[in-house]
């Protein structure tokens, strides 16, 4: 059985949808953050797969993924810091309760 592009893209699509679903349904900010990471990783997989199958001579997709992983790490650290601070101020990390920035 030859491993075609579809074998990679369908799990990544599934991962992405899980991420979206988690992002809009979870109340806990940590869970939302995890969902976000899930979406990012799905996109990373897509990049690598497209690069490997469609443009085997080039490396841009690979590099882009590496950068995305690095930046995602930094972004996660930042998000965790924000969440901790919100918890300190509001004693809560339920995203539906944190709606101070409205009209």
């Amino acid at each position, binding site marked *: 059985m030859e491993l075609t592009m579809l074998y990679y893209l369908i799990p990544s699509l599934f991962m992405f949808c899980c991420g979206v679903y988690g992002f809009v349904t979870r109340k806990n900010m940590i869970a939302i953050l995890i969902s976000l990471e899930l979406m990012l990783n799905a996109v990373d997989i897509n990049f690598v797969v497209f690069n490997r199958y469609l443009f085997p001579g080039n490396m841009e997709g690979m590099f882009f993924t590496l950068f995305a992983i690095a930046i995602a790490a930094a972004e996660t650290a930042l998000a965790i810091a924000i969440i901790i601070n919100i918890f300190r101020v509001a004693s809560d990390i339920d*995203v539906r309760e944190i709606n101070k920035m409205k009209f």
Partner: protein
Amino acid sequence: MDVTLPIIILALPLFMFLFLGLLGKYMSHRLAGILGTAGMGITLICAYTVAFTYFFSGNPDFINAEGERLQQIVFNVTWLQFTPSLVLRLGFLIDPISSMMLVVITTISFMVHLYSNGYMRDHHGVWEKGFQRFYAFLSLFSFSMLGLVVATNIFQMYIFWELVGASSYLLIGFYYTKPSAVSASKKAFIVTRFADLGFLIGILILSFYAGTFDFTHLTSVAVEGLNHVYQVSEGTAQNILSIFANNPASTFMGASVLTWALVLIFMGGMGKSAMMPLHIWLPDAMEGPTPVSALIHAATMVVAGVYLVARLFPLYLMETAALDIIVVVGALTAFYAAMVACVQVDIKRVLAFSTISQIAFMMVSLGVARPEFHHGLGYMASMFHLFTHAMFKALLFLCAGALIHAIGSNDYTAMHGLRKYMPITHVTFLIGCLAIAGIIPFAGFFSKDEILTACFGHSIFWYIWMSCVAGLTAFYMFRLYFLIFWWKEHKVHDPHHAPHDQPWTMTLPLVILAVVSCFAGFVPFGNLVTWNGHPMFESVSFLTNLENLDWSVAAISLTVAVVAILIAMKMYKTENELPAKMRNALPALWDWCYHRFYWDELYMFITHRIIFGLVCKPIAWFDRHIIDGTMDSFATLTNKASWSIRGLQSGNVQTYVWIYLIGVILLGSITAICLI
């Protein structure tokens, strides 16, 4: 001529204005008064020197071999240069009328400065509040008036014209805590400003076509157009007559541009000189201190209109239609003001209307002046009357000031029978009345006689008309005189506070001006001031004016004056019922005269009902409802839209994501549908 004296004449009053205005409050009242008077005294000496040098030195700059007097520009500084031809200059022009005006202005101004030292304090010697400010404003006025008469071009004249208006405004409103004084000053300013709008448009029309502001160019070229040589100007000035004659296309409503320019310039003169229908400000201007009325509203500023017409007289001669308008306006005003003066109660109002009437005499005299008749006698008569009138009217006003100061009221009803208590004021006032009534040999006789002769030469109708006005003048002045000094015994409530003559600072100017009023008529004006500088008489002596009288005219005017005085004497010398009977015989006429023919009410009606009510109110409504309404509705609409969509900004992050997702799905579907 050396420039030193002319510069001092202008600079010293200006300096005194700044000095007293800025530092006055740090010095005592007495010192401020003395400094102001001394400054004016020096200006007086300089002005007299300049005028006497001009008239009597025989210098070829001022008088040529034929005895014609010339114009000379002492200095002329470029002030603003816009283009090579559009230049505004400030300078000092010396010619017969400006020299004469220098004498008049500085004399009266000095007398008023001296007089105010006594007038501007009460019986206990307490100085009026703002005394130093008063002297500063008097100096400002003197500066502006001197600058006006020596102007070399019409634009300089306009600048100083506005300055005298502003200083008149400041002085009328000197008692600024009194509402009537404040409204009087505003009225004077607004009415004269309205007239000056016409003046400005006239200046612009005239100088646009003539290409120059300079009086020398304007008038000399005009005179050449009439085949007279007044003064040959430098350079190749264009012939103004041909300029205007060759502009047939530039007519407006049937009149040529020159007529329009001259009539509009005369409108400025009408405002300043209180000609009907722009006279309404002058009676109210009497709210100012009496010395101010004497200086500004009797002797100097109000004759600026006459001076303006005299200055441009050669131009007016080219367009006699404008001169005819001047005659009609002047004659109507003279008669109207004389009628009103006959019934007024406030002595300053009587004098104010008398001033209007006398200035109208000067205007009529200018209007009837033609070179064909006695070499432009009317012009000379007008200037002569300006000179004598300034002297005796200032005298009358200063007397009125002394009376008001002694009595504390403006009404003659509070005076009556003052002759024993104030002998000096009595005698000087009588001399002033005799002078204005035109009794030989007082000053007014000669000048008024020349005016009547000039009217006689022009048309018999205006001669009879003006003679009637002269009779009315004699009547109302002697009515005033008898009511103040005779009528009945003066009631003295407290023998220690009986009315008495005022301190020497106030009586000395009265005496000086009375002496001048006695003898000013003998000045041989015909040889000093004529429209083309050409002397009228071959030889000059003290009795020149007497020898050259037209005795038929003089006899008639004397008879009229004497009869009028006798009627006034009959009616007012002792208390009797005659005035009341006269009043009851013609109640309507009396009412109309007493209410000044309802001119103020007419103006109120026009401004409030017609202009404010029918023009301004609809415009205000349009502004408030249409223009403001449009802008307001934009704002309201935006506001409402914002309120209705503010719910979208819920602050709930997951809502935003939902909306985003739905948007993406929608856009994606649309794109997909389009692609398929």
